[in-house]
């Protein structure tokens, strides 16, 4: 079959923007051009649907890969301990201060391995520890989107689906949808419009999660894509 898009440079150029329209990483100007073309070009719209299908499956495939074991962090930290570098700020202080008492102090500090410097002050230790607690808490909240279901060494106690909403879905309908399924969003929206949604706890079997996903999928006025997620 002849690819009529490929043989038309203007349509081909727009077609090549579709993956970036679908993942939300496109300029406003290009977004408008794509939307205008989609409104009148059914073939282009069909191509976008294929891209969205493939994107959803790519997300599911990657999510199923799990997470690295603790070995990766342990190896990294061992590497850092094994090859301590001089602290750059102290090294710079040494360069700029030159001679005199401050220069001597800067030189002395710069010559110390980081581990020894860390023990130099109880106050510094307390501060670093406090920062660590705060930072770790923030990191777990901020970056947990890709760890929630597959953190290393732990079994998920929740069951999830990945879904996207139909463009015409109304806020009220979405709210009652969540109520009907006793579901809640745990991650998203991502740039591509997908949400990770909790549909129950670990007592649900794979077949039950499949059935929930199928029931959700049947509500096509509200959701455009649903699939069980790891």
């Amino acid at each position, binding site marked *: 079959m002849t*690819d009529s898009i490929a043989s038309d440079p203007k349509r081909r150029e727009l*077609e*090549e*923007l579709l*993956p*970036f329209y679908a*993942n*939300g*990483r*496109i300029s406003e100007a290009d977004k408008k051009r794509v939307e205008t073309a989609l409104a009148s070009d059914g073939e282009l719209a*069909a*191509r976008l649907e*294929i*891209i969205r*299908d*493939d*994107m*959803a*499956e*790519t*997300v*599911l*495939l*990657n999510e199923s*890969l799990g*997470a*690295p*074991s603790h*070995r*990766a*962090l342990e*190896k*990294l*930290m061992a*590497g*850092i301990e094994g090859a301590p*570098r001089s*602290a*750059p*700020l102290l090294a710079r202080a040494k360069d700029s201060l030159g001679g005199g008492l401050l220069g001597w102090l800067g030189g002395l500090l710069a010559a110390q391995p*980081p581990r020894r*410097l860390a023990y130099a002050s109880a106050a510094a230790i307390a501060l*670093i520890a406090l*920062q*660590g607690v705060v*930072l*770790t808490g*923030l*990191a*777990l*909240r*901020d*970056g947990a989107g*890709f*760890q929630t279901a*597959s953190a290393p060494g732990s079994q998920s106690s929740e069951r999830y689906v990945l879904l996207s909403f139909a463009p015409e879905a109304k806020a009220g309908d979405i709210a009652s949808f969540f109520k009907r399924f006793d579901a809640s969003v745990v991650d998203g929206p*991502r*740039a*591509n419009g997908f949400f990770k949604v909790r549909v129950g706890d670990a007592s649900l079997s794979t077949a039950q999660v499949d059935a929930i996903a199928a029931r959700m999928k049947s509500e096509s006025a509200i959701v455009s894509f649903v*699939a069980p997620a790891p």
Partner: protein
Amino acid sequence: MHTESDEELVKRIASGDRLAMKVLFSRHQVRVYRFVLRLVRDEALAEDVISDVFMDLWRQADRFEARASVATWLIAIARNKAWSLLRKRRDAELDEDYASAIEDESDGPEVVLQKQDKGLAIRACLERLSAEHREVIDLVYYHETSVEEVARIVGIPENTVKTRLFHARKKLGEMLKAAGIDRGWP
């Protein structure tokens, strides 16, 4: 509450802050690991690569320039290390090993189709794309990168990014068609 940005963490890392290093690692390790694993197809190897990636960050944090995001920077380093490994171990050898492992563990697209699951068939085909095509598909569809970011990570012109992605999508469609799923294109 103020959430420390990646760039702020990198500044702390540049001054030797190990806790900031752990935070940045926990924030990005899963994405970087998955990106590498899809290329090298070996979990232990992928873990070694991410340790090396963050070790590079530890050594070079004071040279980080905010022209790209930290996430893009990490993926770019990871990509170089993964491809360097792929070049050392012949692609064919890796792909053959992995292809046979897939055949042992999962159904091919044709079998999956018989089970009437289009999604599984697409995923089976995604596994069978070449490393070059897997990479660009993952970067855009999963890592949600822009044309400019893919160009920076892969080291190719922006137009080549679009063309490569087009061919990867086309190849995926052809594989599905061969397996009995005709989506109207190609």
